[in-house]
């Protein structure tokens, strides 16, 4: 029997499944937060076999290429925007943000815009004091994502008319809204700057 929990799945005996269901029902009722390790312990009544790999950026049940996360950081490493398309624990997110910043901040501008990061690849581009980083599959088309970052920056620039870091800080929720019109579920959604700006205009009218 296989139990699926978020993106992890477990193999266990049939009655353990009932046990797990009851447990989760009660967790939801009590709004308890369990981390996966606790869950694991609870499931160990008979036999556990953890199937997927533990590498956090691997998305075991998701196949194919996609953007894993997008980060926008300043030179000091302050995160101005962080969008994850794979589920990560908060602590893991902070670690990723710290590591990515460390990787990109000291690179020579003449160097490639690609750095290998764990089992993936980070495509980054620097605009003044801001680093835009995309984490993608190791086999994906790096040049296309580089272009993708630039298009996103152009959209921001157009929307905020000459964007600066402060715009992004105070209007972070709008930045997220723009990003959601541009990329969804880790895939490119719209390639026309005009279409996105128009759509943002419509959404603003609803506020």
């Amino acid at each position, binding site marked *: 029997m296989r139990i699926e929990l978020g993106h992890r799945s477990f193999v266990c005996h049939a009655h353990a499944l009932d046990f797990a269901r009851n447990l989760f029902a009660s967790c939801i009722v009590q709004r308890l937060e369990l981390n996966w*390790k606790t869950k694991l312990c609870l499931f160990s009544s008979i036999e556990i076999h953890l199937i997927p790999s533990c590498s956090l950026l691997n998305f075991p049940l998701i196949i194919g290429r996609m953007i894993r996360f997008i980060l926008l950081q300043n030179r000091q490493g302050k995160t101005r925007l962080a969008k994850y398309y794979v589920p990560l624990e908060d602590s893991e997110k902070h670690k990723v943000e710290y590591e990515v910043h460390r990787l990109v901040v000291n690179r020579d501008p003449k160097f490639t815009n690609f750095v290998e990061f764990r089992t993936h690849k980070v495509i980054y581009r620097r605009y003044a004091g801001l680093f835009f980083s995309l984490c993608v599959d190791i086999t994906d088309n790096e040049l296309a994502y580089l272009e993708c970052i630039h298009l996103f920056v152009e959209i921001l620039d157009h929307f905020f008319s000459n964007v600066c870091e402060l715009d992004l*800080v105070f209007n972070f*929720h709008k930045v997220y809204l723009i990003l959601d019109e541009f990329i*969804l579920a880790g895939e490119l959604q719209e390639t026309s700057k005009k279409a996105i700006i128009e759509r943002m205009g419509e959404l603003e009218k609803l506020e």
Partner: protein
Amino acid sequence: MNPFSSGTRLRDMIRAIRACKTAAEERAVVRKECAAIRSSINENDHDYRHRNIAKLMFIHMLGYPTHFGQMECLKLIASAEFPEKRIGYLGLMLLLDERQEVLMLVTNSLKQDLNHANQYIVGLALCALGNICSAEMARDLAPEVERLLQFRDPNTRKKAALCAIRIIKKVPDLAENFINPAAALLKEKHHGVLITGVQLCTDLCKVSAEALEYCRKKCTGGLVRTLKDVANSPYAPEYDIAGITDPFLHIRLLRLLRVLGQGDADVSDLMNDILAQVATKTETNKNAGNAILYECVETIMSIEDNGGLRVLAINILGRFLSNRDNNIRYVALNMLMKAITVDTQAVQRHRATIVECVKDSDASIRKRALELVYLLVNESNVKPLTKELIEYLERSDQEFKGDLTAKICSIIAKFSPEKIWYIDQMLKVLSEAGNFVKDEVWHALIVVISNASDLHGYTVRALYRAFQTSAEQETLVRVAVWCIGEYGDLLVKNVGVLDIEDPITVTESDAVDVVEVAIKHHTSDLTTKAMSLIALLKLSSRFPSSSERIQDIIIQNRGSLVLELQQRSIEFNSVIEKHHNIRSALVERMPVLDEATFIGRRAGSTPATVSTSNGPSLNLPNGVTKPPAAPLVDLLDLSSDDAPAPSSSGADFLQDLLGVDLSPASKQPGISGTNQAPRTGTDVLLDLLSIETPPASPITDILSSSQVYKSPHASLEGLSSPSALSTRAATPAGAAPMMDLLDGFVPNSPISEDNGPVYPSIVAFESSSLRIMFNFSKARGNPQTTSIQATFTNLSPNVYTDFIFQAAVPKFLQLHLDPASSNTLPAGGNGSITQNLRVINSQHGKKSLVMRMRIAYKSNDEDILEEGQVSNFPRGL
């Protein structure tokens, strides 16, 4: 109602946080805000809910915990207004992810919103679904998404297409529902919808063979036409990037064509023309054009063979490689790795450029290029390539040396045409980057040296020279010390000088100097020091005139804090002092090491596992079968002093001396029962001379001939682990017959280890109320499996009832729990519960066991839960 218009508190909060000068100040502001938000949540304040969540999102971005706001997001989503929903969904995507159970509560709201009349609200719901969809939600909401794929508004259609991708990734079984609507999207004119449709089809084809078949039949022609239209389209300002209309669409189309063409010659044929057109006509001045070309090359490489196109593709990569833009060179290196399987010759033409890339200042390019060079090496070019790489090793960055050294060593080992070249190159690597060389590499080098009998003199002189310049490279020192110990006489007497060598004069004391420097150097570790001690013992016999000086050096280690060195130095000292009659025989040159064993080791990438031998054929850890009669000269020719020893012991000794993990199990099992006396003698000498024998020393064999099984891995690990050494040192049970040799250095009470566990028991868990002991045993012939008997003891005065023990292990382990002997644990240690566990370690020998556990029981009608982690498992389990 807008929470974000100026003067509201979100702005003020951000200002306040930005005004903070120190982290402590920032924390104080955030704490105050969080407290206010919490109390507002508790009062169930409707008006400020969205503002609170907006603030929480900002706080979350700064890295503070915000879980208390999760339920508020759900409430916002349930409200009717667009602005509130918008913040609610945004919060949902930022503050939660698909693993949180709270998400189950949101499925219903999502369903309602997906059916909402307002297309913007539908858009919000789709967006949230696409980003946090779990498998369960995927199943529940797939029909809505399927319907929205045909929605009139293109913005909704494209969002639904991307949601569908997420759904089929989560639940591939749902793919067939999406085939038809997805194929319909390919006929769209709207670029946004078209691009998402193409992506959906690509992912469908990957998860479903049915979809792949359908798309191949029905869509290929249409896609080729679409690509042609996009490629030939006149200037379109809306989609123009650097003079190219929508490069993103180009790339997505090429990618889908690749999926369709792979493995289908007819479909590949259909796309030849357009691929050729894209490959030749695309503008290459700008990044966007190169991105298309790059994708096009990958498609050409992947689809069924078409010679002409492939030549075109490799030429494009050649152009990329000579581009001045680093990004372009990087992708070229990346793609050439794929091209190498298609056309090695063509890639070989670029070898010089690629080797230059290994020396680039950018680590990303270096890494790619090194991988590629590694693939390019063959018998004909190994010499110049290795030369170039080793030359670069001198100049490379510290952080790159590790990778580079590993690759060079691997190349040398794989392609070396002759032994002298192998030895030369390895010495160069050792003197440049010896500290980065892995243990198995220098072990292999010693084996090769030992096999090249005509090169012994040459090697030891070369090592002597290398030592003078690179004494800081640990592995070089080890190999040099070993060789000087073995072939010191050849060094001094200049035996076997080759024409290519410069003449060199080394005196006996020069040779001893080397070993003395090695043993006294502060950076030398235990292995080096132990090897030096043995080398000294050997030299004491080879250089009689330096014998006294050598003895002085050995004696200096008598006070060593490391038990191993201390004991060896005392033993060796007594050998030099009192046992002249056996010394020369004792320290004779080692016989040739079995090369096949090592080649097998390197070839078999899997770790050594089973090493028990029950039959006449002896399985070495790597699975190479060794002839029962070990073809080794007896090293310790004991005939002068003692009864002859079984020759196989010599082999073990040698291996042990080298730290190679040939297990004692490679001995003929029959011997131990019949030949007790001679075995004892050998074992003691073995014990005496070896740097390390496995913790379960062969002596146990004598005590119980049935106990054949030994841990095959302990020896290698033991080489660098003092703990294993001391375990070994504590088992001198069989030393009695040779006590005089050890000069009374034998503990008074021999430890009785007969049939006892090979691994010590541990206290896995102890609290004020409970103690858990683990006893280990391993079945013969199955070192991966460890049986653990857990014994639970109640340390409190109360009886425990409903006692349940649970355990969890990481994924490289498999755990089976047998039922416990009881679920009631008597008070005060009057009895115990036992439970058997079985752990299978798939990474046996590489990783040791770890376990988390959780114990639940009732004491005085109170539920008690205890948790713990066991990481003190004995090594080698």
